[in-house]
């Protein structure tokens, strides 16, 4: 394992120290327990947006803390959901009187830890609502399982709800908006290479020089199936078709299309994927009204890509275009 780290135990702490030094103009980092808030937290009268999850997905979530997006993010250990005390302290720190909205990716651990934090916050008389993301179509949905994973849609969710919160939406309105985004966004991902969790020191799975994993999540877990290496166009099709078929997205609809890198994939390849994804969307009669291309929700140094499509009416596009000022996403300000 070759990584730019000092020791597996200190990865998260030292990265947070770097973040604190790099983004002191916009963010405040708490080290006991770990969480990041925007510098001016709490925003009086505004619903506080709280998210978090395992580390190793940078820039998500810490890179999305700032005006127009998240009020706070709680980083867990690498690929391990954070603990309730982190969300509890962060929640209190960003509570401006209008309640706290938790944005939680649908993983058993994340859900249970955020639930416990919500209980604790309510005991402090802070109103809490929770929005889940479970957009990964690679996982068969079922009442009898943990359900689908929350992946790329989380980025779009945090941007759009962040804008809505700035505009003064109430906790109930944000919860409703979040649920509708959850219902109309879908994603799927693949990996060319595995990634190595620092404390494990070896790749989470082995892939042959000619194999790829399709239907992976964001925790270095194996995917739904392993297939021979294919061309960028074929791979993009393998991701786009299930995404479009699942909702399904219908001819004439407008979408935000997000092509994400898993951490070790260069931008030049993501544009080749976006090219094909856009062609496929067009073939399906979809209008790409906005797009995002880059590595925003990653799995350490894994090489691969994920694609997310979200139905977008004018109101949603307006929220997407609204000013945002975070280390990872910034425009309009």
């Amino acid at each position, binding site marked *: 394992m070759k990584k730019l780290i000092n020791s597996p135990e200190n990865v998260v702490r030292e990265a947070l120290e770097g973040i604190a030094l790099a983004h002191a103009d916009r963010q405040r980092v708490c080290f006991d*327990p770990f969480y990041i808030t925007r510098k001016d937290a709490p925003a009086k009268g505004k619903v506080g947006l709280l998210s978090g999850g*395992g580390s190793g997905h940078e820039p998500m979530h810490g890179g999305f803390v700032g005006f127009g997006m998240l009020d706070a993010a709680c980083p*867990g*250990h*690498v*690929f*391990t*959901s*954070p*603990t*309730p*005390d982190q969300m509890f302290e962060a929640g209190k720190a960003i509570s401006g009187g209008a309640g706290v909205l938790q944005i939680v990716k649908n*993983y*058993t*651990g994340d859900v*249970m*830890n955020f*639930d*416990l934090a919500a209980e604790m916050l309510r005991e402090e008389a802070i109103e809490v609502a929770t929005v889940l993301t479970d957009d990964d179509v*690679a*996982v*068969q949905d079922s009442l*009898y*399982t*943990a359900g689908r*994973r929350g992946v790329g849609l989380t980025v779009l969710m945090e941007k759009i709800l962040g804008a809505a919160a700035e505009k003064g939406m109430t906790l109930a309105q944000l919860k409703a908006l979040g649920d509708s985004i959850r219902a109309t966004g879908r994603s799927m991902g693949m990996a060319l290479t595995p990634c190595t*969790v620092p*404390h*494990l020191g070896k790749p*989470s*799975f082995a892939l042959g020089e000619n194999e790829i994993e399709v239907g992976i*999540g964001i*925790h*270095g*877990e*194996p995917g*739904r199936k392993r297939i021979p290496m294919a061309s960028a166009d074929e791979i993009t099709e393998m991701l786009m078709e299930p995404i479009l078929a699942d909702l399904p997205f219908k001819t004439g609809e407008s979408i935000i299309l997000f092509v994400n890198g898993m951490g070790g994939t260069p931008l030049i390849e993501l544009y080749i994927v976006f090219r094909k994804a856009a062609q496929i969307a067009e073939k399906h009669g979809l209008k790409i009204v906005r797009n995002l291309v880059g590595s925003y929700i990653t799995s350490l140094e894994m090489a691969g890509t994920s694609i997310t499509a979200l139905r977008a009416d004018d109101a949603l596009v307006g929220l997407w275009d609204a000013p945002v000022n975070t280390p990872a996403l910034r425009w309009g300000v």
Partner: protein
Amino acid sequence: MDVLTLAQIRSWISAASAEIDKKSAFLCDLDAAIGDGDHGANMTRGFTAVVKKLEGGAGGDDLGVLFKAVGMTLLSTVGGAAGPLYGGFFLELGKQSLGKQTLDAAALTALLDAGLTDIKRRGKAELGDKTMVDALAPAVEAMKTAGADLTTVTRAAADAARLAATNTAPLLARKGRASYLGERSIGHQDPGANSSALLLEALAGICSE
């Protein structure tokens, strides 16, 4: 042996911590195969913190206070799915044993049964879903029919859990991360079932001294 003392419960926790620390890599490997490879690290981090906490004097002379300290510490250090599940498990043990200084076989069985119920409530997992429940449930069942001698009762629990943990391999995961793999989860043991088996093995160890 008819009663477990507070001191022995403390020794159980330390023994469990040592056991998990020894098997940490094994638990991580199991988790890497069908999850995200952190279960061993999470449990080791948690129980190391617990032991530190208890050595720091936490727990006092009340089983309820002791178990609560264990639960709270696990809750804030383990993370992932195992954190709330094991944390809640020990918090439940705390609730049920508040005021007590000792446990006989019947009390211990009832206590673990209550903890198991809390895990099932929180995780909504049924027997056969390929989770820690698959190790804990048979263990508690075995205890109920193993008589009043704690040495026998805890040994029965440990053996039942060990066997059941191994037998999670052929199961198709329906809960937790492994469920994302669908058919590909078959053929691998569940990490949490194994960590549960380790906890009970440590308990049996204490009761056989």
